[in-house]
């Protein structure tokens, strides 16, 4: 584990951790959103368990989104991206490393935290399991679609705001399938949501490095 790919991956993970927490922050944001919603909605556990899947999935997507605009922007602004582009890695490999780093520092921790938050919402064991599995399958898609958005908005000095506008509509299927899996589990239906989510996720992850690399190329030429 010391090739160029690994070194880029580990640097990105280290930077995520150094810029104040990395995983910890996405987690904290996720947990905060999950706490604020019951504060606003009220403490009726029956009601909460019914909205848990949806709210937690939306919360996870937003938490992952939060750190997305730093995926390329920082490296672009300070010239690191120039140097990375000249390295032996192809831009596709760079995009893959960054996708992976983002998932490892947000998607995965979010998934691991989700059972705890499910508890706060009074989600049943089956619902919790469905939430966990759907997040595990679905968060790579969030990182993948997000990475495209991040590379598209690269040359905008403060593109962070456009990012959600571009990314969230594209992620609607992930939310629908993910939350659908949870509600399916609650109603003891097997509705195929997980299968659809997997398909969406695989397609997104396969497509993303190419699209992102094309966008980065575009922006380096600017």
């Amino acid at each position: 584990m010391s090739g160029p790919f690994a070194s880029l991956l580990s640097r990105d993970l280290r930077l995520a951790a150094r810029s104040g927490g990395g995983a910890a922050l996405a987690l904290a944001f996720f947990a905060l959103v999950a706490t604020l919603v019951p504060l606003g909605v009220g403490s009726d556990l029956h009601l909460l368990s019914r909205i848990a899947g949806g709210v937690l999935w939306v919360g996870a997507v937003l938490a992952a989104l939060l750190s997305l605009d730093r995926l390329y922007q920082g490296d672009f602004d300070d010239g690191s991206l120039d140097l990375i582009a000249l390295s032996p890695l192809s831009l596709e490999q760079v995009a893959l490393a960054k996708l992976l780093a983002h998932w490892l520092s947000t998607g995965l921790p979010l998934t691991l935290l989700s059972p705890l938050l499910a508890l706060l919402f009074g989600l049943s064991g089956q619902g919790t399991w469905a939430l966990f599995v759907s997040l595990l399958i679905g968060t790579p898609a969030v990182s993948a679609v997000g990475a495209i958005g991040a590379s598209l908005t690269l040359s905008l000095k403060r593109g962070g705001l456009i990012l959600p506008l571009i990314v969230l509509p594209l992620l609607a299927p992930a939310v629908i399938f993910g939350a659908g899996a949870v509600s399916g589990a609650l109603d003891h239906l097997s509705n195929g949501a997980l299968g659809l989510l997997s398909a969406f996720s695989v397609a997104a992850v396969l497509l993303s490095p190419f699209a992102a690399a094309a966008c980065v190329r575009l922006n380096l030429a600017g």
Partner: protein
Amino acid sequence: MFRYANPAMFMRLSGALLPWVCGAAVIALAAGLYLGFQVPPDYQQGMTVTIMFVHVPAAIVAESAYGLIAIASLFSLVWRHPLADTAARAAAPLGAVFTALGLITGSLWGRPMWGAYWVWDARLTSFLLLLFLYLGYIALWNAIEDEARAARAAAILALIGAVNLPIIKFSVDWWNTLHQGESILSGKIAPVFLWPLLIMALAYMLLFAALWMVRIRTEIVNRRARGLMQRTA
């Protein structure tokens, strides 16, 4: 100079066509509206059925416009056709406006029909998401100042959106049928309603075409002006 060869041709062609398209749009619109207000009240919906004549065509044009943008984007990315970016860019705000029109007329119709301006029906929801796709696309165009770069970035986004749009639509259908379904009135439309509807659909398409041409023309002119300005800067 080669860069402007194609737009120049377009300017000439559209200049000749535009009055005719505009004229046809106005005539069709007038005829459609006239016929639309002539129709007998529907036994179920009363006079609110006339909303149909503004609603359905708007929705159809809104959906088609995104397809046009995607096709233009493909041309722009693959063949670097200089007109394609301009065409895609010009279509987006029109598409967004027609989408908004479809949403507004639909919800105005929904109030008497369903007792609510909005229900989370599959078709409505996917249409709302289409509006967001338009807005993101427009925002991206406006945010990137460098023309050429904005064009390519927007084209990539449009294509990704085009791939994802059917998935969104499909997932929303799937989502909604899991819960309760809203029954939109379906199926057989009597000829009294059908004809005005078809004429109105034609009118909307002509209207879209006319506005599209005008926007492309102004964009070409603006581009030339900007180019001149920058070259002297």
